[in-house]
Every structure is written in C-alpha cells, then in structure tokens.
C-alpha cells in the first residue's frame, strides 16, 4: 500500500515505520496518490497562537475568550481533557478546569497568522476556499507535476512548514470531495492526517450519526430523529423522492451526502450572498449576559470569515428562534460596509436590545449580508463613537506596519510578558 512518512516526507511501499527516519507517523492508503480535495484545519488555533507567543503557557491549559463576554472562544487540548469546549460559559469552564489560564483574544495577531498560512497555501494551488481564519478547502487536482509530488505529499509539506515556520499545527483531511475532506480533517486531531478514499466511502459513512453532515444542527437532527433517522444507514434506506417530500431541498442534499456525493467545487470566488453564524442552545435562555456573550462570539466568527474571504457587509443580520420555534429575523443597514467584529457586534446588540424581552430563545445567529469587497469596508469612523475610530485606526496602523516591516515590527506589550 502506498505510504508516506509525515515527518521526513519519504514515500515508501509498506511498513509500520518510515524506512528513512524510523518515524511511526506513517500515512498509508491505497488511494494516497489519487485523492486531491483537502480540508486543512488548524489545531486549537487561537490557543496555539497564544502558546507559541508565550512559552510560559505551553504546558498549562489555555482558554482564549472571556473578558466581560464570559464565553470560551477556543481552548487548547490540555483544557479539552478537562471537558472545556468552545462556546462554553467561562464560569463553567473554570469550574471544570480551575488551573486554566484565560487569555483575551488578540484578533489582529490571528488575522496576521491566518494570512501567513493563506500565503503558504497560495503557493500550492489557486483553488483555495477559506472557511474562517483557521480552516480552508484546497483543491490540488493536477498539481502533481508542478510540485513534483502527489497532493498527499504537498499537504504533508504544508503542515510541516506551518509547524517549522509559524509554530502552529494543523490537521488535514484528504478525500475526493469537500464533504468528506471536512469530515476527515476532524478524525485524527490534533496533528492529524486522515484519508477517506473512494473505495471505503460507503463503509465509512454508513454507521456514522447524521450530525456528521455539515449543516445538520440540533434542529435538523431533531426533525430527522422524528422520521426515525439517526445514522447515515437510516438515511440510505429512504427513497430520494420521499426525502425530498419530507425535508425539501435539504432532503435532496441528504440523499446525495449519505452516498458520499458532493459536487461542490473548491471555489475561492464563490459568490457569497451573506456570511452568518448561529448557535442552538442546549437549554432555552433569556439570560442577557449569556446571550451577549454569544453575540460577541458569533460576531467574531462572522468577522473572521469575512476577513478570511476579504469581504465585508453593508447589512448586519440578527436571527433569533424562540422556545416555540417562532423565528425572528432583524436586519440593520450600516452606512458603510464593515468587517470589524466591534461594529458587527454593536449593530447586533442594538437589534437584540429591542427583542430581548421576547425570550427565552433556543437559537441565536449573527450575520452580514449585502457583501462588498474589503477595500470598501470601514473607511469612515463614527462621530458619536470616537473610540471606535481609534480602535479601528490602531488595528489598521498595526496591519500596515506589519505588512511593510514584518510581523514582529510591532507587537502588543502584553505579548512580551
């Protein structure tokens, strides 16, 4: 079976260890040299950046997030061992893991690192589709001759380069379409490299729960459960027409995905109409602090995605689902487009304030729509909020200096502590 050493990148035929460097990190798969759609996902991205920049944090559990928002943005794997998860309220996280060090997110730094990773990917293929600051799809089809190696080797090089040059690890999922590549990258985290080949696609999917399908959240899961569908195997028993009749266009998607079919292309110029993030709560809530924390976190995710895609939005949207499933959607047109977390969050909060009394809510979502290129974003400040102008200005000045003199030309004082 074709194998590859993930440490020294030596390809070889078969064996438990690399014949060259004796490393046990061996990747072996029959279709290793023929698969070319990949998903790269950084491992605990924010937390890893923090650990990299402050070695004192290396061996302690690190939680990024908090401030007054009180929600975990990201946590390192040490914290995960204790049961800490992203989106968890901070007090709960600290109860599970009192020894954790809480670090405030430094978005400018993450954006900068994300751009560096992006630049490395740009050298491999033009077909990159960033999903957020720390993950992207790559289509390496037809790059074998260019890089003198099959995509699997090129990808292993990419993560190795990320580790040596940026001090950050990532996990790779390699398969024959985006749906499976995204699933694969999650199978073997951190520092993972998973392959789902054409031959085993059906066997791989069959026993999995339906929530493995991207876009199947709590609500869809509940609806499927009512129809007796829990696993992909259950889905496979359904007729295509019946699925469509019951679940509409979602049914059509499910039918294809259950068969491991996904014809979406990796497309950097995908014409996005909006960027949004939402979350469904375990328990309906009307607690303003919890909801405020989620608004911030969602706004941050939306801004991340916008920055990764070099886009901005002229409209901020707020989505709320009440306990009785009634859906409230609110839109707020900004005077000029934005990709800043701060502005998205503030607009969302203003809208939320008017609806806050209508809770408890089971879902909250934040998004931007009416998209514009980032060149048009945040060009002008707000007279009534001079601090916002200063914050935006500081961020841009930092970006500009780093663009010219390198990342370390200007750093925040606290990153030196």
């Amino acid at each position, binding site marked *: 079976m074709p194998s590859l050493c993930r440490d020294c990148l030596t390809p070889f035929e078969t064996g438990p260890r690399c014949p060259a460097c004796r490393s046990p990190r061996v990747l072996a798969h029959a279709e290793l040299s023929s698969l070319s759609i990949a998903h790269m996902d950084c491992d605990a991205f924010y937390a890893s950046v923090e650990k990299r920049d402050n070695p004192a944090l290396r061996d302690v559990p690190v939680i990024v997030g908090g401030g007054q928002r009180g929600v975990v943005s990201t946590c390192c794997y040490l914290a995960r061992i204790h049961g800490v998860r992203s989106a968890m309220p901070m007090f709960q996280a600290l109860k599970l893991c009192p020894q954790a060090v809480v670090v405030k997110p430094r978005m400018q730094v993450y954006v900068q690192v994300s751009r560096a990773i992006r630049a490395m990917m740009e050298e491999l293929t033009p077909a990159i589709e960033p999903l957020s600051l720390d993950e992207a799809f790559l289509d390496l089809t037809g790059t074998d001759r260019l890089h003198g190696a099959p995509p699997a080797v090129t990808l292993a090089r990419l993560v190795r380069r990320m580790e040596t040059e940026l001090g950050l690890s990532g996990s790779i999922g390699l398969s024959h379409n985006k749906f499976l590549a995204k699933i694969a990258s999650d199978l073997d985290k951190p520092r993972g490299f998973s392959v789902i080949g054409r031959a085993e696609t059906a066997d791989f999917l069959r026993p999995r729960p339906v929530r493995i399908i991207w876009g199947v959240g709590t609500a869809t899961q509940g609806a499927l459960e009512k129809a007796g569908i829990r696993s992909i195997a259950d889905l496979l028993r359904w007729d295509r027409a019946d699925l469509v009749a019951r679940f509409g266009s979602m049914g059509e998607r499910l039918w294809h995905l259950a068969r491991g079919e996904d014809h979406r292309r990796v497309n950097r110029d995908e014409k996005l109409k909006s960027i949004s993030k939402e979350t469904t709560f375990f328990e309906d809530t009307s607690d303003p602090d919890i909801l405020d924390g989620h608004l911030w976190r969602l706004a941050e995710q939306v801004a991340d995605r916008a920055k990764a895609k070099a886009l901005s939005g*002229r409209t901020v949207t707020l989505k709320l689902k009440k306990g009785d499933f009634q859906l409230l959607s609110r839109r*707020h*047109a900004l*005077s*000029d*487009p934005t990709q800043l977390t701060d502005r998205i969050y503030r*607009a969302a909060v*203003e*809208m939320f304030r*008017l609806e806050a009394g209508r809770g408890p809510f089971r879902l909250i979502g934040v998004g931007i729509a009416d998209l*514009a290129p980032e060149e*048009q974003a945040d*060009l*002008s*400040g*707000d*007279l*009534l*909020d*001079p601090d916002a*102008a200063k914050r935006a*200005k500081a961020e*841009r000045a930092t970006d500009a200096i780093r663009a010219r003199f390198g990342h370390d030309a200007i750093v925040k004082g606290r990153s030196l502590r």
Partner: protein
Amino acid sequence: MKLSIERGTLLKALAQAQSVVERRNTIPILANVLIEAEGAQVSFRATDLDIEVVDRAAAMVERPGATTVSAVMLHEIVRKLPDGALVNLTEDATSGRLTITAGRSTFSLATLPREDFPVMASSEYSSNFSAKAPELRRLFDKAKFAISTEETRYYLNGVYMHTSTGESGPVLRCVATDGHRLARIDATLPEGAAGMPGVIVPRKTVNELRKLLDDDEATIAVSVSETKVRFATPAITLTSKVIDGTFPDYTRVIPQNNTRRLEVDATEFAKAVDRVATVSSERSRAVKLSLDEDRLVLSVNAPDSGAAEEELAVAYADERLEIGFNAKYLLEIASQVDRENAVFLFNSSGDPTLMREGNDTSAVYVVMPMRV
C-alpha cells in the same frame, strides 16, 4: 353634513392631510381624513398616531356635521377636478357615503364613523413662543440633511431642537447627525422660548413642518412639552410626538482645535466635487482633497471605473494635507452655504472636519473623513 368649497382651497387643505396619512395602513381609519364642518369653516384632520395635522379652510356650510373618508382618494379626486370648480360635499347618513359633486362629476365615497377617528390627546405645553417662518425654515432646512435613517439609533432620526448659548447670547438651536456628519444651526432665541425642554423632532414631522414655512411673512406659534411639539399657523396646526430618547452630547463631537483653514467658493467647490465624483464607485463615492499652498486638487481614483482630477484656486496657507471624504457628504454641506465662501477647518486626515460659512458660527457642520 353638507358644504361647498372652492376646489383650489380644498386641494391645498387636503394636500397636507393626505401627506401625513401613511400609504400602508393596518388600521383602516388611519387612511381616512376627518372632515368637520361648523360655522363658516371646514377642517380636515389626519393622523398616523404620531403626527396629527388639522387644516382649516373657509367654506359655505349648509349643514354642520362630520365624517371620515379616504384621504388619498378624496385628494386625488379633487386634484383631477378642473381649476376654479365649486365642490359640494354631502354626507348621506343612511347610505353611509360621502357624495362629491363638481360640475357634471359625481363621486360617492365610503365613510367610517367619526367617533372611530383617533384624536391626539391634548398636552400641557410648558413653553409657547412664536417664530418667523424664515427663521424656523433656516433652522430645519440646514439641519435636516444630517438626520439619520438608522433605526437602531432611533434617537438620531430627528432634529434636536433645544436652547443653548451661542457666541452672541442665548439661541434656539437645531442639531442633527447620523454619525458621519453633523449640522448645528442657531437662531436668536425667540421670546418665551427660554427654559424650553429639548426635544427630538422626528424626520417626518420636519418634512411636514416644511410645508407651513413657505410663506416668508408667516409667524408660527410653537408649543413644546416633554413629549409633544406643536407648530401652528392660523390655518394649519401640526402636532407631533417627539422621539422618546436622549440625544447624544454633540458638543464633544464639534472640533475646537482644528487650525488648518481652507477657504473656497462653495459653488465652485460643489461643482468640482460633483464632476470628479462621476467616476467614483457607486457606493463609496470617495473623493480625495489634496491641499497645498493656495491650491486644492480634488481627485478620485476608482480602480474599476477610472480616475478624475480637478484643481481649484483656494486660500490655504498651512502645511500639505491629504484627506478623503464621501462626495455626497461634501456636496450636501457645501450646498448649505449660500452667501459667503465655505471655510473648512481641518486637523488631520483622520479627524472630523469642521465647515462653516465665512466666520459665521451660527451654522456649523462637522463631517467625518474617509480613508482614501
């Protein structure tokens, strides 16, 4: 109710009423105008529950009474009648219709009972004063372009009318801002206005008010309470709720230490801005001002569509400065200048810029720059 009225008089009275009526109504009676005939006068009352307008006109009242009919429809009918026609309005209580006849035309409109018509509760006004129409017109006309349309910052959706102290004593002041530009307009404080509560007059009210202010000779009776404001002429009374919110402290926003002074002919400036902005992208419309000694270069560089540049002779004696603005904002503030040169006071390319007419501080504008 039965009355006759001259078409022109009726049209004028209805025009104001029908513009207050919202086009899309969930409450049917709000689409109607309440017609009340009494003595030698007929009044037309319309409301959207936030604004109420009552317009009075002389008429030959044969039989007093009151009813309500669709404001828009009645206005349309009267508009289409020939000039100089005598219009008869007759309410038929049994059929519940209002018959309108003029010459050989007859119309019959459905009515709703007058009892159902919501009449705005009267208010105790704590301040009453009168102001000349041109004074009020200047206050509101020069401020209203800066009113915000952002629904979330609802307290910016109007003109903040209040009393303050200007350079030469107490003033009646109107301020509007949308966070990108701000207008602060002062007028001599009318007698009786001192101690008036500051109120945010909603945008729609400002627009309706404008129609009362066309006559230079008119005197407007203004009444203000914490919750309502009323503007009245002998013929028209406009009552409006004010925006229930706190207007932000705008004084912090007005730059005090901008020293780089540019003086330019406002009309020439506006024309030049308009010309170069032609090639700017539809949405951002950014124009760059490059200032050097007595020289202003306006330029637009839109990678997708093209570039434009124009040079103007100006008075400027400070160090070189490059600063960008939204063309629309520049045009709007430049068009407020009507007598003297426009004077811009800059600080840096990132700070708010102040604009006024000559050295007149009774109307100042602040505009936020834009990165270019």
